């Protein structure tokens, strides 16, 4: 493979989108619960295989490009994949595979599974589109696909009044925030004359590209199409709102607990696992590839701190507040899914907190470790949290109430499921042989390396506070006697999938400690963070553009 064009990248979101749109056809011809669950399982299997292939190629060739419709990059939409998106794409598709196996059981208890299938598939189309895309405007479109299907999923039980209320309070500010993302994208276009991430990166870094600049214009100093310094600053300000809103960071966290609580359990698992990571990914892509420390235009100083670093510090402070809020409010919750939503908030807060380690004041090795930690924490949190949403959601469905009291004593009735839930909780707390410990430890190391002692200590303190909430669940599951005689219902599918995820958490933890995974993540993060990596990102897109237009070098 001389030129790194891979068709699988483009197929992943397209398969999800077509799968979602074609679901009503099944309703016409074969309206059976089994058909829907098997249909989404097949789609999940195919896309997971494709994303594994993408990951394999990314490890081999560093950057993979897919130009849609055969248009040369700055003119058409391209999907550009480096290690950063490959990991997030892998998390997304594997998570959807887990959820669709769970749906084999869940579709038997929900009233009408057809729309749930369609909405989940469309949501995944939005998520994978956001993750793999190499174009800001396409990111906006996919963000809207993700957002609209999320609003609808939250309001899925439209007979419940609080579900509708949660959906509206999410949708109103969400619609406003995504409109402002569009506004930011327009500002970027007005400044740079292009919307392609690689092309913008080339212009911020002053890299000379042969074909991209031919199609979108060259820059003289800070003057491209317009003034790029003010355009970038405005665009960062406007776009960060939508990204932090999707992630649920402090001033925008009010919608998250209600929305995650009221959504159907599979949807909650997808939200907690990957939808809030899309916001994280957007911020990372912005500050690692587009406005990296090597980009002189993002480094003009305000109050003696470079602009880019100032934004990252502010984000990390917001993450710090979010983490504490999540951990403290979690301790007083009596609703099982609301407790898990606050735990999600806490973990996203930790991820944002460690963005302080990505500033230009930090040396390169620490930045690489920080990115490794962020990626690995995204992985372990996605697996652990969504497994808890699935497992405890199943128990809550059986008990017909989400109160923690109503699942007391279920640990003895469903031993396999409860053991998996215990492993998930221990991983989220950060107990040694499990994945969660090593991801938190990597973040801790990065914070120590930066000299951020306050953050490093508060990471431990936050984990300590969160134990109160988690232990409450475990105590109710195992120690208390059931309120009335519990009739055992067959939960074989839920048992199997939760046990598999629990085993994965153990395996991931051990493989990371042994160094296999750590080395892979570290090498990949190094490729993304280094200036050579950014140059490779730009050059690959440039090369593809050149190949399509047919200009010989």
């Amino acid at each position, binding site marked *: 493979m001389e030129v790194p064009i891979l068709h699988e990248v483009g197929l992943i979101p397209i398969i999800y989108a077509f799968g979602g749109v074609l679901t009503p056809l099944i309703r016409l011809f074969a309206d059976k619960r089994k058909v829907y669950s098997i249909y989404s399982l097949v789609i999940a299997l195919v896309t997971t295989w494709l994303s594994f292939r993408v990951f394999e190629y990314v490890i081999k060739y560093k950057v993979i490009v897919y130009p849609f419709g055969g248009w040369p990059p700055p003119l058409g939409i391209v999907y550009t994949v480096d290690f950063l998106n490959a990991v997030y794409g892998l998390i997304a598709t594997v998570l959807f595979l887990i959820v669709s196996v769970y749906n084999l059981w869940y579709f038997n208890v929900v009233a009408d599974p057809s729309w749930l299938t369609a909405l989940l598939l469309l949501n995944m189309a939005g998520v994978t589109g956001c993750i793999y895309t190499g174009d800001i405007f396409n990111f906006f*479109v996919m963000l809207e696909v993700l957002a609209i299907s999320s*609003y609808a999923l939250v309001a899925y039980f439209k007979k419940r009044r609080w579900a509708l209320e949660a959906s509206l309070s999410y949708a109103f500010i969400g619609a*406003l925030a995504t409109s402002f993302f569009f506004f930011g994208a*327009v500002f970027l276009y007005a400044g740079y004359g292009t919307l392609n991430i690689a092309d913008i990166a080339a212009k911020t870094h002053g890299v000379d590209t042969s074909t991209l600049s031919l199609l979108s214009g060259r820059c003289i100093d800070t003057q491209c199409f317009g003034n790029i310094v003010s355009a970038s600053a405005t665009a960062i300000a406007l776009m960060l709102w939508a990204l932090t809103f999707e992630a649920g960071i402090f001033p925008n966290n009010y919608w998250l607990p209600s929305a995650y609580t009221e959504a159907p359990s599979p949807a909650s698992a997808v939200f907690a696992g990957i939808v809030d990571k899309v916001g994280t990914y957007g911020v990372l892509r912005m500050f690692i590839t587009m406005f990296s420390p090597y980009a002189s235009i993002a480094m003009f100083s305000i109050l003696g701190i470079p602009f880019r670093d100032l934004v990252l510090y502010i984000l990390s402070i917001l993450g710090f507040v979010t983490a504490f809020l999540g951990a403290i409010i979690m301790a007083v919750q009596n609703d099982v899914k609301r407790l898990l939503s606050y735990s999600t908030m806490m973990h996203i807060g930790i991820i944002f907190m460690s963005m302080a380690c990505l500033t230009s004041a930090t040396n390169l090795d620490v930045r690489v470790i920080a990115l490794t930690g962020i990626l690995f924490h995204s992985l372990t949190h996605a697996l652990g949290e969504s497994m808890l949403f699935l497992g405890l959601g199943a128990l809550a469905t059986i008990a017909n109430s989400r109160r923690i009291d109503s699942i007391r004593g279920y640990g003895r009735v469903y031993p396999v499921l409860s053991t998996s839930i215990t492993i998930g909780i221990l991983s989220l707390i950060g107990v040694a042989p499990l994945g969660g410990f090593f991801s938190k430890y990597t973040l801790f190391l990065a914070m120590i390396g930066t000299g951020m002692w306050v953050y490093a200590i508060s990471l431990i303190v936050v984990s300590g506070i969160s134990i109160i909430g988690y232990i409450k669940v475990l105590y109710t599951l195992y120690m208390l006697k059931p309120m009335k005689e519990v009739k055992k219902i067959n939960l074989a599918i839920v048992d199997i999938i939760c046990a598999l995820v629990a085993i994965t958490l153990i395996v991931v933890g051990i493989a990371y400690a042994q160094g296999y995974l750590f080395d892979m993540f570290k090498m990949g993060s190094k490729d993304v963070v280094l200036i050579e990596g950014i140059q490779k990102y730009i050059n690959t897109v440039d090369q593809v553009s050149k190949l399509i237009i047919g200009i010989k070098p």
Partner: protein
Amino acid sequence: MFLITIASLYLNIAISIYGVIAKPNLVKKFIALTIAQDSINTVAILMGYRVWREAILQPPILLSWSPSPKDLQDFMNRAVDPLPQALVLTAIVIGLAVNIFLVSTILHLYRHFKTVDMDEISKLKRGAIVEETA
């Protein structure tokens, strides 16, 4: 004139943000949201606009089937940037989906609560949450 247009659009956006956040009535919130979307779209189109004064009667299109280099030069000078218009078209279609969803959800909410006042609904919600955590 150009500056007044831009300033008034920004003012429009600011007022509509205030409307979405501060007004308790959901329908008013919704109207403010649509105004915000439309103002943002207009600003986006304005970014690709080009002031063309010399021959007002000439439209920004090519007027001959086989243009000479001079025709092309003229065209380049007076044509507006089509890309923001394409972006806005997409944004309008997406906005349509969001707006329809919001309207139907507001209707469902009204059927449940018999009110569209967000203050009253959140008062009820606070009560429900306190009851739940007690």
